[in-house]
């Protein structure tokens, strides 16, 4: 089982990559995915994540305890409001 994570804006700057895959267990949740992201990329991304909107297959994540399914895509979007 694999989760594809795409990083945008400040999240991309913090991880240095546009997207990557993480292995999933059948029980894995969004929280688990965030932990794996932080373990792999350290404090730079940990600072950005709390402000980010998380879209799981296009739908905003409210409950980070929800289970992930194989083949899903998680978009990590730091907000900005400049105009």
């Amino acid at each position, binding site marked *: 089982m694999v989760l594809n994570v795409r990083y945008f804006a400040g999240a991309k700057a913090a991880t240095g990559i546009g997207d990557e895959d993480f292995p999933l267990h059948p029980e894995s949740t969004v929280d688990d995915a965030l932990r794996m992201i932080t373990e792999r990329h350290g404090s730079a991304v940990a600072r950005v994540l709390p*402000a980010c909107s998380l879209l799981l297959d296009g739908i905003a994540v409210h409950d980070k305890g929800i289970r992930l399914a194989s083949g899903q895509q998680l978009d990590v979007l730091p907000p900005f409001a400049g*105009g």
Partner: protein
Amino acid sequence: MPLPPLVEPAAELTKEEVARYSRHLIIPDVGVDGQKRLKNAKVLVVGAGGLGSPALLYLAAAGVGTLGIVEFDVVDESNLQRQVLHGQSDVGRPKAESARDAVAEINPFVKVNLHQLRLDSSNALDVFADYDLILDGTDNFATRYLVNDAAVLLGKPYVWGSIFRFEGQASVFWAEHGPQYRDLYPEPPPPGMVPSCAEGGVLGVLCASIGSIMVTEAIKLITGIGETLLGRLMVYDALEMTYRTIKIRKDPNADKITELIDYEAFCGVVSDDARSAAAGHTITPLELKQKIDAGENFVLVDVREPHEYEIVKIPGSVLIPKDKILSGEALSELPQDRPVVLHCKSGARSAEALAALHQAGFRDAVHVGGGVLAWAREVDPSLPTY
């Protein structure tokens, strides 16, 4: 998903208009019918700044018949690097008037309505009511949630664009036919965690990249051609020179928008002093947890009110309400020999108190972004929140 044209065609085009718009008229998809729809269209542009500048210029040139401009600011020299509506001689003038003159010079057939006011919950619905379509080029989260909610309540579509440094995003939001802004960003970020363009900078030409996408979407919505960005977010990276699109779907768990609220409170808007104090002096709840677990020597000060402290608190914190810090009354209670970490409910009040502490000489004081709510969310979900 193809959408029907948003605007009915005007009765006719004059001889002068046919001459002016000939390059549109000979595109079969636009044609006379599309140009008449543009002529009949009423489009409101919120903000005549970075995104509003190219948007207004191209909407005017394209022949949108009525353009509304919401803007209360005056032209500053630092605007000229990207806000191409305004020129050197406009510095110090109201942006709305400068924008009106620039639009008239591009296309005298456009009627311009100026709304020289600060958009808020008391006036947004009235201002929006007369327009078919809204373009949001504002520069702060509070106004962006306001524009969204007003558009949702009125059932109107709007084109949204946002820029920062080298990156831009654009989309079309229309709750009646697809997602809206809150489906993409359900909650505003904790105050002080996201820098504005004034703090972080923006590549001037990025305004044109995103502004032109916004106008393209406006023209498609008005004339009913092509596939709009409704249900998709366009993400542009100028350094990589890439466009990526993200699918956005309606959030089935979203709260229904029933009225306009206090958006400054919702977004935890803080003063400029607090914002600059928080920049570089904000830690995350997880970083606070690490400090506690590592046994670091610091004092954690909760700047909320006693009744809030009773509801939920971070272990080890001491309560000193914000006003006692701002008045200077409580400064003597703070230790000089170890760092101070402030927190409140969401990070707004602690940022204000942080600015006061920095001024009082507590240079290494920091605050917790997102406050006790973020602590409960990220460190200890068993805690109650309010």
